[in-house]
């Protein structure tokens, strides 16, 4: 919030007339579509070698001609799309009309806006044109994009829509906001240092994603090296000792992946700044492709403190702020409002800022010991099945009975160790009106959310659990399901009742301003 009344802004009156995309949007749409096409089909063309085979069969000139024809067709379609695309503000409602073959009209009311993102690729910076995206409470599926509008127009649109939205929310919840949030204090809340950026690159999940992306290219690269550069006697370069050679190979691969991961983090989060504008939290980042995301605090549902295994060793993690419809798993995480490269203390301070009184992560409770026994049995069964398959594949093994006993004891010990670690990794705590749930063995994710942000809950009891007096509580929150397995049954029921009372007593925090629900004792 900037403090001015968005309803009287001059931009608002300008936006009341029909607006068009910037002419540069045509080029942007072409480039974006081409990049997307190449990205989607790159593994298929390069990985399987089908692309090269096709080019060799058809001929370079014909392929070039086809590509030029496609480009021309794309240009014509983009021009037609540009002509049909127009938008305007009708009061607090954004109206968009578009469609190539089918004319469509979208209307987004300001009170339903949850998230606004602005992207500016490098090639659009000289023209001061951005891509503008808006999401409603329905989540990512509801995303609507204005592909190429002037920067000033995007700012005016964002401020008008979110200004109107926050005005609605503030007027709907006069008693809930603590004083600290009532008065906006614009300023930089967090800035990512180069050291933090490098550590985030090393400790984020990008390293695994890059490894998975590059793995299909290994075989073609090996074949290409073998065919094109036969004079390079690669085997002669390797050390004599096989162990040293394998160790060196692993080290080189890890170093390459770590470097790529740091470069990816640099690309995405260079110059990361989180600005606090009271109700609006704004983050800007990106080396070539600048991104600006605006998070409305009244729409924030769950904050996740995420640490990968390496992140726990290096003492770094990142925060993910989830709103409604934040499904799609970890793969979609990069699209979310993410605060990278923070230490635990910084993370706690930021969560404290988002929800006063909830920042400090409390000591967590463990679930029932019965769960540890169940985990032990499950792991033991899994290991036993694995060994049985190995024995079946390897053929009959003439081991003495004591050796089989030793194998069984080792498996039981391994399973016990794994079960203990997994049991310890799972934890939860209720701290006032906030719930903390941690999960993950090597990498860990701790979800922090007010009790009233639970969407629905489920209490599950298997026949074994009923005999042991335990129950599993499944909580549906904005980013998916959180499971608290094997809680003592009275505790699970008490927690469920407490959560329901919090959700149902909500009046002002309702996701739909205007819906008022009063809580009354039902007994």
């Amino acid at each position, binding site marked *: 919030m900037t403090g001015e009344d968005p309803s009287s802004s001059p931009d608002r009156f300008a936006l009341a007339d029909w607006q068009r995309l910037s002419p540069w949007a045509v080029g942007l749409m072409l480039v974006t579509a081409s990049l997307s096409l190449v990205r989607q089909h790159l593994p298929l063309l390069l990985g399987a070698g089908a692309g090269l085979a096709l080019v060799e069969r058809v001929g370079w000139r014909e392929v070039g001609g086809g590509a030029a024809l496609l480009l021309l067709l794309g240009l014509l379609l983009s021009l037609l799309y540009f002509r049909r695309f127009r938008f305007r503000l009708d009061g607090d409602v954004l109206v968009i009309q578009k469609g190539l073959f089918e004319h469509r009209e979208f209307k987004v009311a300001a009170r339903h806006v949850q998230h606004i993102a602005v992207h500016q690729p490098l090639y659009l910076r000289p023209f001061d044109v951005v891509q503008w995206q808006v999401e409603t409470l329905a989540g990512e599926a509801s995303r609507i994009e204005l592909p190429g509008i002037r920067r000033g127009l995007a700012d005016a649109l964002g401020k008008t829509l979110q200004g109107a939205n926050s005005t609605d929310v503030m007027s709907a919840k006069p008693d809930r906001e603590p004083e600290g949030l009532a008065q906006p204090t614009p300023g930089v809340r967090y800035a990512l240092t180069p050291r933090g950026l490098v550590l985030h690159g090393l400790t984020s999940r990008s390293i695994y994603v890059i490894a998975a992306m590059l793995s299909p290219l290994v075989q073609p690269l090996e074949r290409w090296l073998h065919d094109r550069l036969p004079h390079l006697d690669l085997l002669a370069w390797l050390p004599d000792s096989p162990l040293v050679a394998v160790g060196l190979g692993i080290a080189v691969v890890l170093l390459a992946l770590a470097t790529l991961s740091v470069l990816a983090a640099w690309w995405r989060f260079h110059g990361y700044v989180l600005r606090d504008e009271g109700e609006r939290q704004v983050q800007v980042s990106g080396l070539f492709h600048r991104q600006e995301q605006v998070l409305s605090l009244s729409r924030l549902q769950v904050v996740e403190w995420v640490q990968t295994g390496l992140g726990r060793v290096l003492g770094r993690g990142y925060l993910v702020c989830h709103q*409604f419809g934040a499904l799609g798993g970890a793969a979609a995480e990069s699209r979310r409002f993410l605060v990278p490269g923070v230490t635990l203390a910084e993370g706690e301070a930021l969560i404290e800022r988002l929800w006063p009184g909830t920042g400090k992560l409390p000591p967590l409770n463990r679930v029932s010991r019965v769960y540890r026994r169940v985990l032990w049995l499950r792991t033991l069964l899994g290991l036993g099945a694995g060994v049985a398959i190995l024995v079946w594949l390897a053929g009959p093994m003439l081991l003495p009975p004591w050796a089989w006993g030793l194998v069984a004891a080792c498996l039981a010990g391994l399973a016990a160790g794994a079960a203990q670690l997994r049991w310890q990794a799972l934890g939860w705590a209720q701290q006032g009106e906030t719930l903390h749930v941690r999960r993950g063995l090597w990498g860990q994710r701790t979800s922090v959310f007010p009790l009233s942000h639970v969407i629905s809950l489920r209490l599950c009891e298997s026949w074994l659990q009923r005999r042991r007096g335990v129950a599993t509580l499944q909580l549906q929150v904005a980013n998916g399901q959180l499971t608290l397995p094997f809680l003592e049954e009275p505790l699970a029921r008490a927690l469920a009742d407490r959560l329901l009372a919090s959700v149902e007593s909500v009046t002002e925090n309702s996701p739909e301003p205007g819906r008022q629900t009063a809580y009354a004792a039902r007994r």
Partner: protein
Amino acid sequence: MEFHNQVIDPEALPTLASVPLVSVSPRLAPCQAILQWMRWLLVTAVVLHFPVRDEALALWQPWVAAATGGVGLIAIALGWVEARRRAYGLREHDLIYRRGLLVRRTQVLPLVRLQHVETLSNPVERAFGLVRLACFTAGGRGADLVLEGLPAQRAEAVKQHLLARLGGVPPEPLRAEEAP
């Protein structure tokens, strides 16, 4: 602005355990049995007629199909018992649905989270006069709670009650013949 943080007495909270639930229609059990029988018949037919080239294995094919059919019969029997035990409850502020035989699941959907409601029925359900009530919340990709086995008239009454709550109308007890 004044910030409230009232103390809540856990003993005074309404409890899930004390809610009297109402069984769904007894017609759900045969309806589910027919639907499951159709699925298992298809699976058994596929197993029986799957082209197996190895003659030794082909000799076993009828027995495997029979075993599949046997498993299907057990699943249908368990499904019948499970359908008879399903129950639901409508409170002032939430909707409760309990299902499951070996694993008993009690789902609670606070009405403040409800976004829209749908009624669905396939031809078999229509033959039994049953309707499914699907409840959706914000941001979900599918229905968050699907209430199966409601007679059409009662499903409509529950739907109207939920829609009235969506529109912000204060809760009103259902009439005796509509009460779940």
